[in-house]
């Protein structure tokens, strides 16, 4: 199939690899986008939630009477009120995961035990959001508090309180990656480095919060949910299972979606309670998360504690790495063990690691569930590996680029199979790429060799300048499949539908560009419907940097089938042999005979059917195709980042002055859009490294619930990012593409900290904890200065 489709690309129209301007933009720039909060339905009511004010406790009293009596209130509901509508006590979410000891599906509304600040306890429905919030304030709630687990290491101590009373302990899963001769590696080692790293919690912070509008039409017994989920088909599946409806009764549709970054892929409790009350009341109900709710109730991630040691030979070659990862899993298990497993497997990175043993302990805590946020665990694993390499380079007195060069997988070793076992039982295998060349290009682009001069110039101006380097890989394009269908109308317009979804990546442009390249039509004549369960029977959606790999190849195959069918039909219509025909610019013509031609519109019309007449040549009806592109193996993109950081030792302030990315995501469909993905992902990584810190006190109370307390990177603190590309096509799919949406985040923490340590190399600092805020860095600087003063 691959070679056949690769042949088909020879007939392409040169759009692949072009920076087409996006089809999405003009509407959005006019303010004419339709986001979920822009949907207004007749008779629509508005929901607000009573949320837990404490991290852990038992509900002692929940009196809804006064709230129910407020004018303008349509209903106030607790778990007990809605339970008769549901098939299960809890939301049926469990993702299959072998390591999980006990599945702790979240409750839609708290039954009796609250497990994190922000957990939904009651839903209020009213004529307006303001009245609904007034009523929330009238609910009489008394909670008997219980001790809270707020740290994954503390929570795994033998005498730790339990984060939930319905589990025997907090160790919800214990898994490992173990291969190679660990003990031999450490006993042969010439040098060992041992470090402990701690990464803190951060969030997705799409500027559009979560939200949905649910409407139940009793006349056709259909529930329609307009939702900004990243996975509409998954949401439909959960609603079908939770509400006991048939698949024909549930429709989930994406409007325009204002950013996702991971957590919108998780099915959150409000996504069940709002449809439930819409069914109960027989009226449309809207809920839009406000920013406080987003801080406390949208899934987050990145709290991990890594206690690691690395064994190296006398030349700095890796022999073995071992250690323990303690992962904050939050209060329930809606997402299996993917995050810490991604983190651990990505530690290996682009390097030859002969032996690896990591124990991965997932701790239940009284926090919102931890699920994927851009990078999905991988930045943490990459951070640990890259820091260990820098530490060893310093110890051996060799350059940071040199220790990496000695350990990088060589292009002749591709495809490179690691012994790491993946979710589907296969070995983690890097499909293509030239990692040494990638690092080399990054060093050249950054003028790494000339840095000493820049450092000296900065020093003369009283500034401390450092430079850092980090390499990484990312497994992208996770399967098992994605769908795409294409239909040419008799009008000549082309319609595409896909299970792929769009939160701003340019999914519509990507799909239209690929189809237009195959068919030789204007991308603007291609209309794309992503993320609509009516338009596509099956699909998965946006996660794991997957959509160009999965949906891109699905539409590529489907468009090629349409192309072949158009030629076959035209052969009948033109009474010509198919091999004498070519499809160019949306027209099938006889080669070398001008005027002897049929447009795609004419062909589509000819096989659209006339009552009672046979179709030409008994060709199957419709100039259309549907492809479910199946893939299991991951396509590994890779890259190298270099940045320069200026540090103010008096304040601990870090300013990034240069940032270079060399990125390889295989075949590039639209370079402008890939650059956009890399830029956004780098910004997210810069935020996680220097600014963003979701803080809690020891009782689990969030301390940072506004953008004045939780700092997102602004235009002013972002450096200009220079992006260079390599293109090592993936042999795993016909387009040769790899994902690009998360990879920019993965190396950012590692490269920034490398640069900061380099700027302060006279102090021999070791930065172990992220984010690196100015007070934290200042404390490290002062401690190092004090240590240096000692005789």
């Amino acid at each position, binding site marked *: 199939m691959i070679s056949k489709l690769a042949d088909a690309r020879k007939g392409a129209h040169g759009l692949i690899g072009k920076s087409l301007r996006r089809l999405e933009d003009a509407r959005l*720039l*006019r303010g004419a986008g339709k986001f979920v909060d822009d949907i207004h339905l007749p008779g629509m009511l508005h929901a607000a939630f009573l949320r837990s004010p404490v991290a852990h406790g038992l509900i002692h009293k929940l009196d809804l009477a006064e709230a129910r009596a407020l004018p303008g209130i349509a209903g106030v509901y607790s778990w007990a009120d809605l339970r008769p509508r549901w098939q299960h006590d809890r939301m049926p979410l469990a993702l299959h995961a072998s390591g999980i000891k006990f599945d702790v599906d979240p409750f839609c509304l708290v039954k009796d035990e609250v497990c994190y600040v922000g957990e939904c306890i009651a839903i209020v429905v009213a004529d307006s959001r303001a009245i609904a919030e007034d009523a929330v304030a009238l609910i009489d709630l008394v909670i008997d508090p219980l001790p809270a687990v707020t740290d994954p290491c503390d929570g795994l101590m033998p005498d730790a309180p339990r984060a939930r009373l319905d589990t025997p302990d907090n160790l919800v899963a214990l898994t490992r990656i173990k291969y190679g001769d660990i003990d031999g590696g450490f006993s042969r080692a010439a040098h060992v480095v041992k470090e402990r790293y701690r990464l803190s919690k951060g969030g997705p912070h799409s500027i559009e919060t979560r939200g949905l509008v649910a409407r139940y039409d009793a006349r056709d017994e259909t529930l329609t949910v307009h939702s900004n989920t990243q996975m509409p088909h998954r949401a439909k599946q959960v609603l079908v299972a939770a509400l006991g409806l048939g698949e024909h009764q549930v429709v989930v549709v994406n409007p325009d979606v204002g950013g996702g970054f991971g957590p919108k892929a998780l099915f959150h409790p409000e996504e069940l309670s709002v449809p439930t009350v819409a069914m109960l009341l027989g009226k449309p109900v809207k809920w839009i998360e406000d*920013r406080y709710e987003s801080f406390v109730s949208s899934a987050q991630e990145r709290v991990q504690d890594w206690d690691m040691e690395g064994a190296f030979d006398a030349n700095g070659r890796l022999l073995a790495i071992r250690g323990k990862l303690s992962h904050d899993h939050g209060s329930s298990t809606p997402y299996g063990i993917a995050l810490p497993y991604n983190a651990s497997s990505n530690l290996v990175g682009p390097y030859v690691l002969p032996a690896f043993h990591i124990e991965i302990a997932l701790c239940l805590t009284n926090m919102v569930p931890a699920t994927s946020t851009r990078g999905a665990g991988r930045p943490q694993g990459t951070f640990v590996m890259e820091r260990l390499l820098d530490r060893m380079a310093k110890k051996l007195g060799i350059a940071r680029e040199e220790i990496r060069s000695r350990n990088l997988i060589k292009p002749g070793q591709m495809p490179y199979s690691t012994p790491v076992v993946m979710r589907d039982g296969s070995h983690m295998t890097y499909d293509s790429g030239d990692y040494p060349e990638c690092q080399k290009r990054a060093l050249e682009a950054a003028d790494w060799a000339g840095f000493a001069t820049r450092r000296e110039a900065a020093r003369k101006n009283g500034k401390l300048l450092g430079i850092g380097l980090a390499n990484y890989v990312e497994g992208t394009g996770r399967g098992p499949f994605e769908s795409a269908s294409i239909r040419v109308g008799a009008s000549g317009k082309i319609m595409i539908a896909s299970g792929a979804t769009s939160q*701003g990546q340019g999914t519509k442009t990507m799909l239209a560009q690929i189809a237009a390249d195959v068919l030789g039509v204007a991308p603007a004549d291609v209309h794309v419907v992503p993320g609509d369960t009516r338009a596509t029977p099956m699909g998965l959606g946006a996660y794991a940097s997957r959509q160009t790999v999965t949906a891109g190849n699905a539409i590529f195959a489907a468009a090629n089938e349409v192309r072949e069918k158009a030629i076959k039909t035209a052969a009948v219509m033109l009474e010509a042999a198919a091999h004498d025909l070519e499809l160019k610019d949306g027209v099938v013509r006889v080669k070398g005979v001008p005027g002897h031609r049929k447009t795609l519109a004419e062909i589509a019309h000819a096989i659209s059917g006339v009552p009672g007449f046979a179709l030409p040549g008994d060709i199957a009806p419709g100039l259309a195709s549907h492809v479910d592109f199946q893939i299991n193996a991951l396509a590994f993109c890779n890259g190298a980042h270099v940045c320069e950081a200026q540090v103010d030792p008096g304040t601990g302030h870090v300013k990034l002055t240069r940032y270079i990315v060399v990125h390889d995501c295989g075949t590039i469909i639209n370079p402008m859009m890939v650059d*956009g993905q890399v830029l956004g992902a*780098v910004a997210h990584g810069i935020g996680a490294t220097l600014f963003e810190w979701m803080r809690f006190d020891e009782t689990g109370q969030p301390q940072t619930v506004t*953008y004045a307390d939780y700092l*997102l990177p602004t235009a002013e603190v972002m450096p200009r990012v220079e992006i260079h590309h390599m293109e090592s096509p993936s042999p795993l799919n016909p387009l040769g593409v790899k994902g690009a949406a998360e990879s920019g985040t993965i190396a950012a923490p590692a490269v920034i900290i490398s640069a900061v340590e380099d700027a302060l190399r006279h102090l021999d600092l070791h930065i172990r904890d992220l984010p690196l805020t100015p007070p934290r860095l200042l404390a490290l600087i002062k401690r190092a200065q004090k240590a240096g003063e000692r005789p």
Partner: protein
Amino acid sequence: MSAHDICVSVNGVAHKRAVESRTTLADFLRHDLELTGTHIGCEHGVCGACTVLVDGLSSRSCLMLAAQADGRAVETIEGTAGNDGDLNAIQRAMIEHHGVQCGFCTPGVVMTLIELRRNLNGRPIGEDEVRRALSGNLCRCTGYQGMVDAALAVLNAAGA
């Protein structure tokens, strides 16, 4: 809940309405006038998605009450394209330089740049100053570079 009778000019059209005291300008624009291009991202005045111009000055419509807009002239994203529906130069540059991804922060960004362009009155501008001007608009998708480049291109174009 007390009500106020207000008269607000929005994109050159006068609107007379009765509004509750607690109604924000953002909610008034979005719900009462159905001008949903002004987006709400944080409701505490930091993200800038709800930025509109009030008497020519960029304002957080989430922090301003509708009643405070009485007698004032408000400009929103819906009023920025030309009468023929053509995008203005800033909007075109945002397409050209990939300054838009999800489009949620975009209306606020465009309003900020329109104000900046008027204030510059043809004076050229450097990158640091553009970044400072945009630092009140949070964007999670783009890393800002595309919108910065769009602004530099438009603001430094001949006849800007």
